[in-house]
């Protein structure tokens, strides 16, 4: 052994340095790898919970309909009954949680109706489309159409 080490001592020291580095790395690895990694795959399991824990902004139409059955009745038989309430009224989960906290504001009919109903080549034909100037000039859409049941007669 001593004969082997003679003239190789510096190499052994270098090897020892590397070994020490490796050991420190392995220890650090145990300490620093986040808990729950590799459980379901190559990711931190807690990330699933993180993604699921976001606050909700849209309550969903069932929540609206449970408190506003009168509106549900109004929309019966109209094409608009297929549309979720929040599409036009905005995100209202806060209102659904506590109606007194947030009172939803009415959307601007002039802009909102036309986003869907202004005629455009790419829109499918089943959708009723109008040229605003020809159809109503400077009138507002709600002058003639009830948004919850826009069909006339």
């Amino acid at each position, binding site marked *: 052994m001593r004969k082997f080490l003679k003239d190789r001592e510096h190499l052994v020291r270098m090897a020892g340095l590397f070994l020490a580095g490796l050991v420190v790395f392995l220890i650090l690895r145990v300490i620093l790898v986040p808990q729950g990694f590799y459980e379901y795959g190559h990711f931190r399991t807690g*990330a699933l919970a993180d993604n699921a824990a*976001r606050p909700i902004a849209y309550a969903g139409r069932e929540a609206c309909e449970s408190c506003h059955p009168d509106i549900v009745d109004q929309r019966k038989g109209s094409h608009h009954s*297929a549309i979720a309430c929040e599409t036009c009224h905005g995100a209202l989960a806060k209102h659904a949680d506590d109606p007194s906290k947030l009172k939803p504001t009415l959307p601007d009919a002039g802009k909102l109706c036309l986003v869907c109903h202004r005629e455009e080549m790419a829109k499918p034909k089943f959708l009723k489309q109008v040229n605003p100037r020809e159809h109503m000039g400077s009138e507002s859409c709600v002058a003639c159409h009830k948004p919850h049941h826009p069909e006339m007669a």
Partner: protein
Amino acid sequence: MGIDRREFLKGTGKFILLTSAAALAWDSLIAGRPEAAPNYNLQDHWWGFTIDIEKCIGCGSCVRACKTENDVLLEPYYFRTWVERYHVPKGDIEHPEVDSPNGGYDGFPPRYKPGDGSKNFFVPKLCNHCAHSPCTQVCPVGATFDSPDGVILVDKTYCIGCRYCVQACPYGCRFIDPRTMTVDKCSLCYHRITKGLTTACCETCPTGARMLGDLKNPKDPIHEFLRTHKVQVLKPQMATGAKAYYNGLDGSVR
């Protein structure tokens, strides 16, 4: 100093051991449960999506809803979902004209005159939550991953912001959120679907063009949809296992 070497080493050793143990215990405390929400079992779901191009009216409700629901920056150009308008000149599917003004956030201003023999339609786009996702394949650290229920998610506390996944996505779904300097993308509203709600975009789509589907649920309407429509995925040649199925996808769509 009064402390001899042996005592010092013992003390240091104990300190290191206790600190590591404490660190580990703390980590498992704040790691969170694997199940994303109570009553939600990861193994019971395999999420997919259907888009019916023949029903999309280009209103942009989905784009607006997504930005609201997921707190996406309003100033361009960051989109978890967006809508493209295609104008295919007469008989020339190889040279469509495509535009997406602010991703379709404010709808589409009229552009083309009728009568030119062209084909026009809208194509909503979102993350395809690929079953063989090239984006999760290239993440060097495991910050973006395939969840067991088929959703491609991002771990914002772990992402180092190298942008490799953004390069690897063939569909352009990913972007870097400048507020967190980590990657962001459609999460299929994971926080909603794990609570029995549907995604924000599907909720607000007025025509039902967009539909969330649970492929593992035998009663889910997605099965009937896939059976009765001729569906396609985007860039099928890439073999990404995309799970966003389009009905009415024209050959000109990129």
